[in-house]
């Protein structure tokens, strides 16, 4: 099929670019869109995130995995400005994002979704979508007063929203309140809405959670599509089969730290990762296998116990 041709090239390009990258936490990437250094976020005595160095490859699908409470959502919040770290620097396209408020982060091209879906229930599906469009003249007070000043812009945005909704199989629902949709449909809507912003990078926090298997397949297809359109995707997911299916690179977090990185197959057979998921981190096992890890985390269990 000819349609597959560009699809495979984008994917191959991402895989090829990452082929030379070392399989270790904090590995430098050939073309990093996001670079973060020394990000620490504490909640009282608990260090939820302690990422020494991380780089996200442009144009690739990167999965962020880790057991519950590993700090994935917190790390998302920090990167997107919804939370501020106690320490650390991070940048998007080499421009620092430190102290940048969330709406400006979004405008710079980094748009995220939420683990607990934030569809705006009392607004129609179509309005949810149109809200996503950046830089609308009609969103300015004085212009809003005069419909002729924004009607044509609104028409264009509506068309784009409808196209996107059709891709997500939500077009039949466009006049419904978002609150009337199922949980899975709301996940789809939230993702489609994020795309209305025309981001350069999308960050999806558990996009497949609660979505039925049939819908999951189409969602995976959509995420792969994003890469084909040149977007960078960072997503959190617990289902390893999906991670294996769509990601070009996997970053593993446990107890706030990045403990492993690599392509899906190699990461999933990594002993440290298996241990982290099985909860072996309360023994010595984790520190025994990881060379890089031993140095900066003498006792990862300690802060949790004191909390």
């Amino acid at each position, binding site marked *: 099929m000819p349609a597959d041709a560009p699809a495979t090239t984008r994917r191959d390009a991402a895989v090829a670019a990452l082929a030379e990258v070392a399989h270790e936490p904090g590995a430098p990437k050939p073309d990093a869109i996001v670079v973060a250094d020394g990000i620490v976020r504490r909640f009282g005595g608990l260090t939820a995130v302690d990422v020494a160095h991380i780089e996200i490859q442009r144009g690739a699908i990167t999965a962020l995995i880790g057991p519950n409470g590993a700090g994935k959502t917190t790390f998302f919040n920090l990167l*997107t400005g*919804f939370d501020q770290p106690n320490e650390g620097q991070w940048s998007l396209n080499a421009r620092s994002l430190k102290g940048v*408020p*969330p*709406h*400006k982060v*979004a*405008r710079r091209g980094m*748009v*995220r*979704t*939420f683990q607990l879906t*934030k*569809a*705006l*229930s*009392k*607004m129609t599906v179509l*309005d949810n979508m*149109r*809200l*996503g469009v*950046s830089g*609308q003249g*009609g*969103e*300015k*007070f004085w*212009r*809003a*007063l005069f*419909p002729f000043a*924004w009607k044509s812009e*609104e028409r264009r945005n509506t068309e784009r929203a409808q196209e996107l909704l059709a891709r997500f199989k939500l077009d039949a629902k466009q006049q419904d*309140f978002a*609150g*009337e949709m199922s949980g899975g449909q709301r996940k789809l809507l939230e993702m489609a*809405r*994020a795309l*209305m*912003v025309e981001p350069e990078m999308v960050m999806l926090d558990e996009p497949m959670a609660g979505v039925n298997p049939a819908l999951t397949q189409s969602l995976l297809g959509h995420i792969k599509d994003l890469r084909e359109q040149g977007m960078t995707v960072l997503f959190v997911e617990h289902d390893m089969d999906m991670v294996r299916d769509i990601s070009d690179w996997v970053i593993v977090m446990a107890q706030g730290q990045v403990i492993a990185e690599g392509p899906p197959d190699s990461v999933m057979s990594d002993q440290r990762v298996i241990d982290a998921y099985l909860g072996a981190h309360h023994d010595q096992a984790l520190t025994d296998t990881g060379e890089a890890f031993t140095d900066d985390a003498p006792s990862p269990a300690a802060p949790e116990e004191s909390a």
Partner: protein
Amino acid sequence: MDFNGIITQTLTQAIGVSAVIYCLAAVGLNVHFGYTGLLNFGQAGFLAVAAYGLAVSVSRMGLSLWVGVLVGILAAILLALLLGVPTLRLRADYLAIVTIAAAEIIRLIVRSVTFREYFGGSDGITRFADEFYALNPFSSPLDLGVIKFSQNDLWVVTVGWTLIALTSLMIWSLMRSPWGRVLKGIREDEDAVRSLGKNVYSYKMQALVLGGVIGALGGFMAAIAFQSVQPDTYSTEFTFFVYTMLILGGAARIFGPILGAAIFWALLVFVGEFLNEAVNKGVITFLSNTQVGQIRFMLVGLGLMSLMIFRPQGILGDRKELALDAR
């Protein structure tokens, strides 16, 4: 009993001067609370700064009434900024606390002995609106049988309802625009709106200013209608009345605050008139006229409780929309 008198009084009050004032306050509050979800418990403060801005400009500084109106609007904008800058970045409850306190502070300042020479203490300021009545095109009072207005009241009510119509039209058009869509989004989930690149803080501020300025129009009408400003008109009780009206009529509906204000005020008048008449005519013997005032508030409270139980979305609200909240 003089039922005719009771009915006339009730109907006249339903669209009369007080209803107009409450209406404008409620239309403004609807922008805050109804559309944006801002818990402003100091709406009385916006009316107060406007009314006093007008009165002080005219009677203390000798400025024209229209300059006074401008001063009042600027004062309301300033108050909105003053309240919004520190609180709108914080959780919703902070605005509630700060606004309720600020409105009380304003009331206490204007009624204080220290500033008596400017604000007139607890007596307030009187007779500063002649310029308004000089423009009165009506040369005779209105008497439609069931609705009666004096010449001056007729002029005030005409201007008042024109303002209500204009502001409502403006809000109607704003809320159908992308600007209004952002506000509705904020009401539901600020973070979702932020994640889409909107400056939530700025929108909340715009809403606070807009609703405050509309409230200020109510303040002007109050000052002009009675040719007097008195600090205790602008008490916290006033704000709670306005909330009650808004919820009664249906928040986030164009006609919600208008209907709510008219009905609530008419009810209050009706119960008062009815009971007083009944006491005066000896129909009710176990109450005195002074007790009637309290009884009517008890009845109103009872009515509102039933409203919350049987129709929590208000008269014009949409139950379906309210239910969506629960999910």
